[in-house]
């Protein structure tokens, strides 16, 4: 259980019997001595951390080890480790399943679309807010655009459904003014991605802009002043002072976004799903839920989930590597 804590009973430190030179006494104590000393002096801190560390071991690391059932024929009686090995059979079955490419395509397109839309818009909002001086208008815009973040996914989805509903929603009436015929937005698979992505933008833009506003506030005002003196217009200053200033933050957010591209929210896709739009709304996460919990095919669902997680991890590592090469910024240095 204490696998992640590096507190092992320290072996007796190799003590030399020779006279200790002053130089040696100044030398840093060895890691084990340091650990033992820290443990003895701060045992209360180690005591404090036992329960939270146990939490991470139980709810994060044991599930990772439980993922071996992807390579097994899971039997609830024998448990994850006692079940029979079947090698890559679950993966082969999944790859051979006609639904495989649809799932990968749906997940990838939905995620890519989400990243493309929800990455630049908060930056634009933050820069626009940053351009106007603090006042009632700025505060109002910020407070209002931030608010939808606090509304639950269930409510946002149902609001979207109600607003788009052909009978009672207003969207049909509004587009009717422009001569566009009414449409059953939620019944047509072709609309699913747009609905998903733009409701997401509606909900999260204000929240995401906060991070960029913080980054913009961190830019040295002297840079702006000197640019002004050099005669730079507002647009020029945005392009040459603001954008480079928020670049490191933007890269980190983008890398994280791309890294999560395949683990796109189960919660929302599942809520928007109905039998009519399934052709585009069935994504890997919803498929895992259905195979695993509704059909009780634990091994298969775990294999699909694992496939997803591994792709995710590789995407993240790759994008981080690329970002570091291109911009010099990455998640870790």
């Amino acid at each position, binding site marked *: 259980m204490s696998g*992640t*804590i*590096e*507190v092992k009973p320290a072996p007796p430190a190799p003590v030399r019997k020779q006279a200790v030179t002053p130089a040696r006494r100044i030398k840093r104590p060895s890691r084990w001595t340091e*650990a033992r000393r*820290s*443990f003895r002096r*701060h045992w209360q*801190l*180690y005591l*404090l951390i036992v*329960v939270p*560390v146990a*939490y*991470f071991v*139980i*709810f994060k690391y*044991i*599930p*990772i080890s*439980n*993922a071996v059932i992807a390579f097994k024929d899971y039997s609830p009686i024998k448990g*994850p480790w006692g079940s029979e090995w079947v090698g890559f059979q679950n993966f082969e079955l999944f790859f051979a399943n006609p639904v495989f490419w649809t799932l990968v395509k749906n997940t990838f397109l939905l995620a890519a679309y989400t990243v493309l839309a929800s990455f630049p818009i908060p930056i634009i909002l933050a820069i626009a807010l940053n*351009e*106007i001086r603090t006042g009632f208008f700025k505060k109002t*815009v910020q407070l*209002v*655009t931030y*608010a939808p973040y*606090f509304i*639950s*996914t269930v409510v946002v989805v*149902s*609001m979207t*459904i*109600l*607003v788009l509903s052909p*009978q009672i929603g*207003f969207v049909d*009436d509004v587009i009717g003014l422009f001569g566009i015929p009414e449409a059953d937005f939620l019944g047509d698979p072709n609309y699913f991605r747009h609905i998903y992505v733009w409701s997401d933008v509606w909900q999260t833009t204000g*929240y995401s802009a*906060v*991070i960029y506003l913080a980054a913009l506030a961190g830019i040295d005002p002297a840079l702006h*002043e000197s640019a*002004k*003196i050099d005669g730079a*217009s*507002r*647009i020029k200053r945005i392009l040459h002072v603001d954008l480079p200033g928020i670049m490191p*933050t933007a890269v980190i957010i983008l890398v994280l976004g791309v890294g999560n591209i395949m683990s796109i929210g189960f919660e929302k896709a599942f*809520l928007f799903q109905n039998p009519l739009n399934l052709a585009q709304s069935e994504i890997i*996460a919803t498929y*895992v839920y259905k195979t695993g*919990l509704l059909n009780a095919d634990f091994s298969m*669902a*775990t294999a699909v*989930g694992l496939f997803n*997680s591994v792709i*995710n991890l590789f995407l*993240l590592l790759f994008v981080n590597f690329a970002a570091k090469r291109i911009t010099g910024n990455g998640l870790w240095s």
Partner: protein
Amino acid sequence: MSATLQPFRSRLKKPVPVEKSTIVETTTDRIFLIGVKVMLTVALVAVLIPLVYVVANSFSSASAVSSGRVFLWPIEPSLRGYQEALSDPQILKGYYNSLIYAVGGTLISVTLTIAIAYPLSRKTFFGRNVIMSGLLFTMLFSGGLIPTYLVVQDLHMLNTRWAMVIPSAIGVWQVIIARTFFRSTIPDDLYEAAVLDGASDLRFLWSVVLPLSKPVIAVIALMYAIFQWNTYFDALIYLKDPGLYPLQIVLRNILILNSTTGSAADVAATLERQQLANVLKYALIVISSLPVLLIYPFIARHFTKGVMVGAVKG
């Protein structure tokens, strides 16, 4: 700001008031600024319209809602939707459950978060980098839905209230926020002084660190509370007993799956029920989002700070 520009001011033709920008705005700049304001107004309206629309509908009569006549102002004002929503035992039960999960879950989460974040913030804590990397790894890679479900099942937490608060108790992001706060605001000297006065680590945490950390504790508590209030996924997979359902699951059943209670005998009653169901939905949206949206303006500032602290690397 203006002080640094003093030497340059003389070069400008017109004297410029100090409160305003020290540099004359060009015409293009002014046009640009107007464009920015127009854009922000559009954003404001785009976010507001759906919200106002929902509120207006919730206060309208059932028939006006069902025929889609309501836009931004209530038509045939009525409180029928609210009456209906607040008399539904399912909804009240959901409210009650959500309250329990939010309060209990937040208490557990905050306690555990501080218990791990504080030691990790101390330089003398051996192995803190290993533990921190262990936490960060869980942000990047997870066992997945089923393996986690198996753990909860083995712990016999399925279909209990514990399943709502324990498996999602600690957020790595909140640990980072708290750790960064402890590290940057509690000076080492303070600890040295406390030790000289005979305080132990726990005593120091309890009597010095926690009182000094009220802002960050408030921020992470609110983050956890709002997360708990809004989540439905854990309930969906771990709970079977409707008596334990949080509000969000009840909402999902009524709002999205359209499962209203009761069956009507004749056609007229069915129609009325359907109309009522629509206005009930709007009222329900307002009722369920109200607690969070009401406290939000007061906490937005702190929340923003939390996001900013969390954004600081390392």
